[in-house]
């Protein structure tokens, strides 16, 4: 039997251990076993992917963009969560703020999350520039908590929401997952309202380099795609990882982030 496929992931919460142990168990005893390595940040993970320490990286969208940049496009995306294909950024303000769209942010304070969070910092600026008044006409309040984890912890987005509650900002840009996790407008009536939702874009994917051949990744992918929400043994892992099924990558969904990274001159590595 060949060596287990080595998958890298960033440990942004203790739950990551449980998730990947569950994934490893799922593949155990198959023709395509896997093991995992956890990293403290995406920078180290992409380094490890490039130097061959890991075969596959569970990358955020920014980590994908940076891997593409560092490999001159030689890397390939293998799979994503269904939820990664429809990710969005949501702009929220205090309920009753009368901000009705991105233009309403002109000369107001917008709280952004970690500088390396695509959903809460990089793409919001891009959306202001392309669909709003331009980032230059908005006062950006940056809340750089948990830098290195590309916004995975969600903490900087919660901090941005707190800034709105405390009136240190007039609005916040957060990922749709954080918006869901606070119960959208429903659990805190009178607290927040969403005034703009971005077009859908792609978020995480499994990334591999060409020296890991398809003969190794394809059987693993076949098993990955076979994970079934209705199977009680698979369900807890899928729930924890926030998906109902694994799907082939939708690379078009990264176009806005590639453009944003170029426009904002975000370096290929930090």
């Amino acid at each position, binding site marked *: 039997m060949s060596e287990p496929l080595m998958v890298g992931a960033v440990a942004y919460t203790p739950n990551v251990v449980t998730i990947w142990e569950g994934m490893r168990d799922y593949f155990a005893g198959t023709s395509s076993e896997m093991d995992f390595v956890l990293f403290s940040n995406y920078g180290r993970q992409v380094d490890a992917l490039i130097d061959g320490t890991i075969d596959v990286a569970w990358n955020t969208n920014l980590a994908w963009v940076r891997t593409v940049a560092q490999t001159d496009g030689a890397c390939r995306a293998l799979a994503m969560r269904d939820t990664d294909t429809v990710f969005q950024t949501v702009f929220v303000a205090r309920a009753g703020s009368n901000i009705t769209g991105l233009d309403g942010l002109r000369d107001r304070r917008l709280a952004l999350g970690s500088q390396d969070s695509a959903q809460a910092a990089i793409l919001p600026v891009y959306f202001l520039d392309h669909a709003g008044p331009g980032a230059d006409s908005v006062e950006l309040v940056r809340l750089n908590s948990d830098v290195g984890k590309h916004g995975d*912890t969600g903490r900087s987005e919660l901090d941005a929401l707190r800034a709105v509650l405390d009136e240190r900002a007039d609005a916040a840009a957060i990922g749709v997952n954080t918006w869901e996790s*606070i119960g959208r407008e429903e659990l805190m009536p009178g607290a927040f309202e969403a005034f703009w939702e971005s077009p859908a874009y792609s978020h995480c994917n499994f990334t591999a380099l060409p020296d890991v051949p398809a003969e190794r990744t394809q059987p693993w992918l076949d098993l990955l795609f076979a994970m079934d929400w209705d199977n009680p043994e698979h369900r807890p892992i899928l*729930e924890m990882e926030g998906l109902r099924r694994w799907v082939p990558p939708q690379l078009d969904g990264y176009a806005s982030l590639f453009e944003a990274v170029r426009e904002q001159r975000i370096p290929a590595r930090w």
Partner: protein
Amino acid sequence: MVNHGMILDLVEHVGAVARHGMVSVPLGEGDPDELRAAAAAWCARTGNDLVEVQGNVATVRRGRSPNPLGELDPDLLPGTRLWMYTNFDCNLACDYCCARSSPQAARRALGLDRVRQLATEAVDAGVSELILTGGEPFLLPDIDELVAACTAVLPTTLLTNGMLFRGRRLDALRRMDRSRLALQISLDSATSQLHDEHRGRGSWARAVAGIRTAHDEGFRVRVAATLPYEQSAELAPFHAFLDSLGIAPRDQVIRALAHRGAADAGIELTVESLIPEVTITADGVYWHPVSADDDDQLVTRDIFPLQEAITEVRRRFTEVRARATAAAQWFPCA
């Protein structure tokens, strides 16, 4: 108004622990009921378990804990069997009686009407077996009617000390439906000494006679011994004796002596340690037949509707198990 930051705190703190990990989250200032309701709504929506709210601090377990009811053997699901205490008075006064029964005990009978209604509602509630116990049920003049109300709808077991099968009581026994009724007769030992020590002189001989009578009358007879834990190891002579009486091995039941009712020793049985068996007495719904005279295991005074009583027992069982799991998680030793 609820402090809006509390939801943000819940997201942050719960997100920082592993699945099934627990975390305490201060909910801030505000009306405790509103805070609790908001925390409960957030947990319900996000698939987490609100373990408890004490003061203004919520304890949340990340992810949903498995349903303890779903983990039970289906036969043990509360409400699969329904126990009914027909009465509490007894011709004996065994020193370990969990129901504190004796000739002096007040009757506290359920009565035919309630037994009939319980039997009917039991069918709709998904009960698959009825069990009648006391006290000594054969002290009731209408015991055959009570039994008939039960056997008419479900297989039934009747617990008795087997000592009263004479005269009109024997006639009552003979009127019972052999195809639907099993008798469970108490006998503690292969010889009279141990049995009589706890249940009264001469009681062993009469119980054995009762077993023979019931058996000869064509009833399925189960024999149940109540033994202190330390005596439950030397059972070979007892089983040999029951074999000689024609009692099938599967009908030879050994129960550990419980420290309940009149017993001054025995294993401790609490709501936390017992898987509930829904038990109805004239006084209400109890957690388990072994505690049917103990207020600490009273579930509700409302016997009807039976379905609600069963639902309440299951709900409490789920709650007790969740609390036990939570407590176990709070006390890692290393």
